[in-house]
């Protein structure tokens, strides 16, 4: 590197000033709100779908065989290809949600299934003997056995959610989005801004991870 270092790695002070400037405008907060909404929505939909579908697939081999290839595809299909199609289906505000869903959902799904599979066969035998019905086995046995797996999946997925949502925002550029600001900072080489936004995302993510962990602590582990 020959030139000015600040352009690559701005000093913390420059970044700090950029951050302060940002926090003075209301647009920043609206943007944060929108991006948070997208991330959280994508995350929640992933959890809902991943856990429910994971249960069915974990319990029933047939359902698993049915869904596994589909989820294999979802797991892989490149963001670029998704966005092209997603743009037709959704408003551009919602494209990042959809993309985040496609990334986070398979993680939750896979972990849920592993959790289900880790259930002690001896307990299932006990349930069989005592004629416990499916639903109660799910609620009282599979559920608790899979919790640590689902927890791990959720923590991974939430973190990834932030990352993926902002990446999808960069690619689909909805009006209020951190991704668009990241993109602009990059195009105009406003590296302190880029770092300031990065910092905001990281803080948001740490905050939400804490919230998630507090919420999860309520559950048995």
């Amino acid at each position: 590197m020959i030139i000015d270092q600040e352009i690559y790695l701005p000093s913390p002070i420059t970044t700090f000033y950029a951050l302060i400037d940002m926090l003075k405008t209301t647009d920043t907060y609206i943007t944060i709100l929108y991006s948070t909404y997208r991330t959280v929505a994508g995350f929640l939909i992933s959890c809902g779908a991943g856990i429910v579908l994971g249960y069915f697939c974990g319990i029933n081999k047939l359902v698993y065989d049915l869904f596994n290839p589909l989820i294999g595809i979802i797991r892989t299909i490149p963001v670029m290809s998704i966005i092209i199609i997603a743009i037709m289906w959704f408003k551009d505000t919602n494209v990042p949600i959809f993309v985040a869903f496609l990334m986070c959902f398979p993680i939750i799904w896979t972990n849920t299934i592993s959790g289900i599979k880790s259930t002690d066969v001896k307990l299932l035998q006990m349930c069989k003997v005592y004629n416990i019905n499916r639903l109660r086995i799910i609620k009282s046995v599979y559920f608790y056995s899979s919790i640590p797996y689902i927890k791990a999946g959720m923590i991974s997925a939430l973190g990834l959610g932030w990352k993926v949502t902002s990446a999808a925002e960069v690619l689909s550029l909805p009006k209020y989005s951190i991704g668009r600001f990241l993109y602009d900072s990059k195009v105009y080489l406003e590296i302190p801004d880029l770092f300031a936004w990065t910092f905001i995302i990281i803080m948001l993510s740490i905050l939400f991870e804490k919230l998630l962990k507090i919420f999860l602590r309520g559950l048995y582990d």
Partner: protein
Amino acid sequence: EPVNTEPVNVTIAGLKGPTSIGMIKMIDEKALNTDKYNVNYVTESAPDALTGKIINGEIQISSVPINLAPILYNKTGGKVQLMAVNTIGNLYIVGTDDIESIGELEGKILGMSAKGSTPDFAMNYLLNQNNISDKVELNYAMDHATMSQSVIAEDTRVALLPQPFVTQTMIKNSNVKILVDLNEAWKAATDNTSQLYTGAVIVNKDFAENNKDFIEEFLKQYEASVNWVLENQKDASLLVEKNEIMPSAAVVEKAIPYCGIVYEPAHNVKDGLNEFYKILFDSNPASVGGKLPDEGFYFTE
């Protein structure tokens, strides 16, 4: 005279698009490769892939979007210089509606792409100058390709597009016509003080100072290449396809006359550019890197 000194590595870069078409002869011939210089030509699809390497000095000479030049100049503290403008005005309003001037856009929905880019600022400036900025609804797509898709499908009836998307769109849907040449509209709006510049060739300042002969030769050959392209459009378009700058020679051949390929050395266009950058700066200072470039921005031989 030391004979076996290591040759200097030079990387000349361009974007896959009109800004590289003028250089195609040099790219194809791998021009300027001598005992003293080991020249390597690369073309990238997006400016992002170039900026990093321009800044860290991996790329010595590059063609870039017109506003990236002052951004780089400002952000690196003057380590790059603009040597020449290589494209002017490859933006067009296209569509299936019948209009002939900016003024007729009144009451219409105009398809736009790449919000916050130079074309965006330019269009907004023109709407302002025509006093219809609040009478035109701008509908932004994610990028040119998406907007092009929408025009082809006739979901959008008038849209602003750059070349080669204009040609591509017209080939894929023959109902689509060029409605307004934005450069003409620009010239009219600025009383011919500036043009709608779109691409520039920049050079690493240190490199230019230390390799004066090379730069001189480069500019000479570059001008020759541009002229050759303009005179031999069919051959040029074949070379463009062959060197994987753009995929379809047919599209390129049709597009070349509308791409605004020129060779204008810095001293010729300095005033016009200053005027142009001022307009951008007034729209959004960040679009030229926060401040207007000073004298040192323009390369002098």
